[in-house]
C-alpha cells in the first residue's frame, strides 16, 4: 500500500490538535474533517465514522458523503436540532477507532481492453512518459486501487493512488463526450466513466464492467473503501463480454 501524498503528518495524515474538526455545512449538515491529506489509511477511519453516524443520527439522517479526508453528514433539522447533531458527532469522535472492515470494502476486478481504439490517449501517455504502451498497461493494471470518493456523476469512483511513473496532467481541453466505461487517469488517480459525460482525464482503454445500474441493489458497482484491480483482456474477450467497440472519435 502506498503512503499518502502529503508527508509530515501522522496516523494517515491526521494532523495533531486541530483535527478532527466539525465544520458548518449549512442548516442541515456538518462536515467532519478527519485528515489533511489523501491516504488509503484514512478509509478505515471514515468508514468507522460513517457506520457510527448511521446509528447515532438514526431516522434523522439524510445522507452521508465520504470523500478522501472528510465525511459530510446531512440530516433533517426539524427532526434533530443541528446543535444536538453536532453534540452527537463530537461524542462519536471522542472514542472513534478505525474499522478495518468498513475501510476495506469489496474487491472488484474490472476487465479492461487497453487499446488506442477505445483508449485514444494510450499512445500519447506512453510517449509523454517515455514508456512503451505495454509498460503503461502493466503499470496501470499492476496495482490494486482504493476508492477514495464517488462524485462528478452517479457511480464515478475516484481511485488511487496511481504509480508515480504514470502521473500525467489532465487534457487542457476536456472532451465533450467521454464514452461509457472509458478507463482513464489524471494526476495520481484513475477512474472508469459510468455514463457519457464531458471529461478531461486521459483515456487508456475501456472496461466491460457495468458501473452503475439502477436495477442493481446498491446501484453503484464501486463504493468508497472498495478495492479495484484493472485486468487486461484482449479484444476478443472484450467483445465476447459485450464491450463497446465504438471508437472514441465517433462519440465526440
Amino acid at each position, binding site marked *: 500500500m502506498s503512503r499518502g501524498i502529503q508527508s509530515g503528518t501522522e496516523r494517515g495524515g491526521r494532523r495533531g490538535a486541530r483535527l478532527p474538526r466539525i465544520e*458548518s455545512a449549512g442548516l442541515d449538515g456538518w462536515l467532519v474533517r478527519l485528515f489533511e491529506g489523501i491516504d488509503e489509511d484514512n478509509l478505515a477511519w471514515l468508514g468507522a465514522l460513517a457506520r457510527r453516524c448511521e446509528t447515532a443520527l438514526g431516522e434523522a439522517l439524510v445522507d452521508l*458523503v465520504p470523500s478522501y479526508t472528510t465525511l459530510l453528514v446531512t440530516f433533517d433539522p426539524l427532526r434533530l436540532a443541528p446543535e444536538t447533531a453536532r453534540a452527537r458527532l463530537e461524542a462519536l469522535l471522542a472514542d472513534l477507532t478505525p474499522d478495518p472492515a468498513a475501510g476495506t470494502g469489496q474487491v472488484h476486478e474490472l476487465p479492461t481492453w487497453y487499446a488506442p481504439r477505445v483508449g485514444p490517449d494510450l499512445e500519447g501517455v506512453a510517449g509523454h512518459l517515455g514508456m512503451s504502451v505495454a509498460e503503461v498497461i502493466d503499470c496501470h493494471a499492476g496495482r490494486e486501487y482504493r476508492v477514495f470518493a464517488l*462524485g462528478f456523476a452517479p457511480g464515478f469512483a475516484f481511485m488511487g493512488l496511481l504509480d508515480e511513473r504514470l502521473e500525467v496532467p489532465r487534457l487542457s481541453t476536456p472532451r465533450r463526450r467521454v464514452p461509457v466505461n472509458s478507463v482513464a487517469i489524471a494526476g495520481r488517480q484513475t477512474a472508469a466513466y459510468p455514463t457519457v459525460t464531458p471529461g478531461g482525464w486521459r483515456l487508456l482503454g475501456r472496461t466491460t464492467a457495468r458501473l452503475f445500474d439502477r436495477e442493481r441493489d446498491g446501484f453503484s458497482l464501486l463504493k468508497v473503501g472498495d478495492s479495484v484491480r484493472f485486468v487486461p483482456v484482449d479484444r476478443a474477450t472484450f467483445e465476447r463480454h459485450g464491450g463497446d467497440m465504438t471508437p472514441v472519435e465517433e462519440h465526440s
Partner: protein
Amino acid sequence: MTPEDTVIGLRVERAGPLALLQDGGRFGVRRLGVTQGGPADLHGWAWANRLAGNAWGTPALEITFGGLALVAERDLSIAVAGADLAATLEGKPLALWQPVRVREGQTLVFATPRNGLRAYLAVAGGFRAEPVLGSVSCVVREGLGGFDGHGATLAEGDRLAVSPDAGRRLEAGVAPVPAPPDYTRLAMLALLPGAQVADFTGDSLFAAFNRPWKVDDRADRMGVRLSGPRLACRIGSLVSEGIGLGAVQVPPDGQPIALLNDRQTIGGYPRLGALTPLAASRLAQCLPGQEVRLAATTGERALGDYRRLRRSLER
C-alpha cells in the same frame, strides 16, 4: 405504482426550454455521486402543493422561464405558485397562489417571466411517475427521474400522468397564503458562514457581505454564478469534499458560485459557507442581471425560518 393509479392529466402542446418533474429530492444516495435534485425554489413548490391539497413531497412541475403550453385531457384542480410567468388559461390571466379549476380541453400557457423565474404547477393528488433511486425528481445531467425515468425534459406530445384524484374539487382559503413574493426586489440572501470562511482575506470578507452581487448568465439548477468584486482566499483548492445545498464556493477567478439542487456531490473550491434553504430558493427565482446581497445569519435564525415555512404548510 400500478397503471390503475394513474390517468392522463395533461398533454404537452409546446414544451418550452425547461419543465421538470420535482418531488422533494433524491435522498440517501448522495454517497454514490447522485445529486439531490428537488425543487430549486422549495417555497414556491411547497405552496403549489399545499394549495392543491397535497402532502409535502408530492411531485409537481417546475417550469423555468416559460414557453410551455399544456392542454387538459380531463377536468383538473390545480394550483400555481412561485414565479409569475404571465400564465394564462384559455387566454385569460391565470390566478396564482390559489386553487384553480381547469376543464378538459382547456389550454394552460406559461409565457415569459414577469416576476421570478420558476413557476410550480401542482395538480390535486400530484403528478405520477415511477420513482428512480427513490425519487421522481428529474435530473437531466444524470439521466434520472422525470416522467420517463431517464431524466428527459418535457417534449411536445408528451401525455403527463396524474393521480386519479386530480379532478377533485379543492376548497379555497384553506390555508393562509403568504403574499406572493416580489422576486424582482433586491434579494438579501442569508448565508451561514462556515467551511473555509476564515481563509478569505479581510477585504474579501468585507466585500462579500457589503457589496452588491449580480446574478450571472451562467446560472442553472447546478449553481448560480455571482459577479462582483474579486474575492481572494488563501487556499486555492482543496481535496474534494461533500458539498451541501446552498454552499457558496469561490473558484480561483474570485467570483462566487452558489450551488443549488443539481450540484455535484463533492467539490474542491474553498467556500464562504452555505445559503439557508430559503435563501437558495430565493436565489433560484432571480433572473440574470438581478442584484443580490449576501447577509450572514445564525443557525438559530435559519432554523426558525425553515421551521416556520414547514409549519405554515402543515395541514
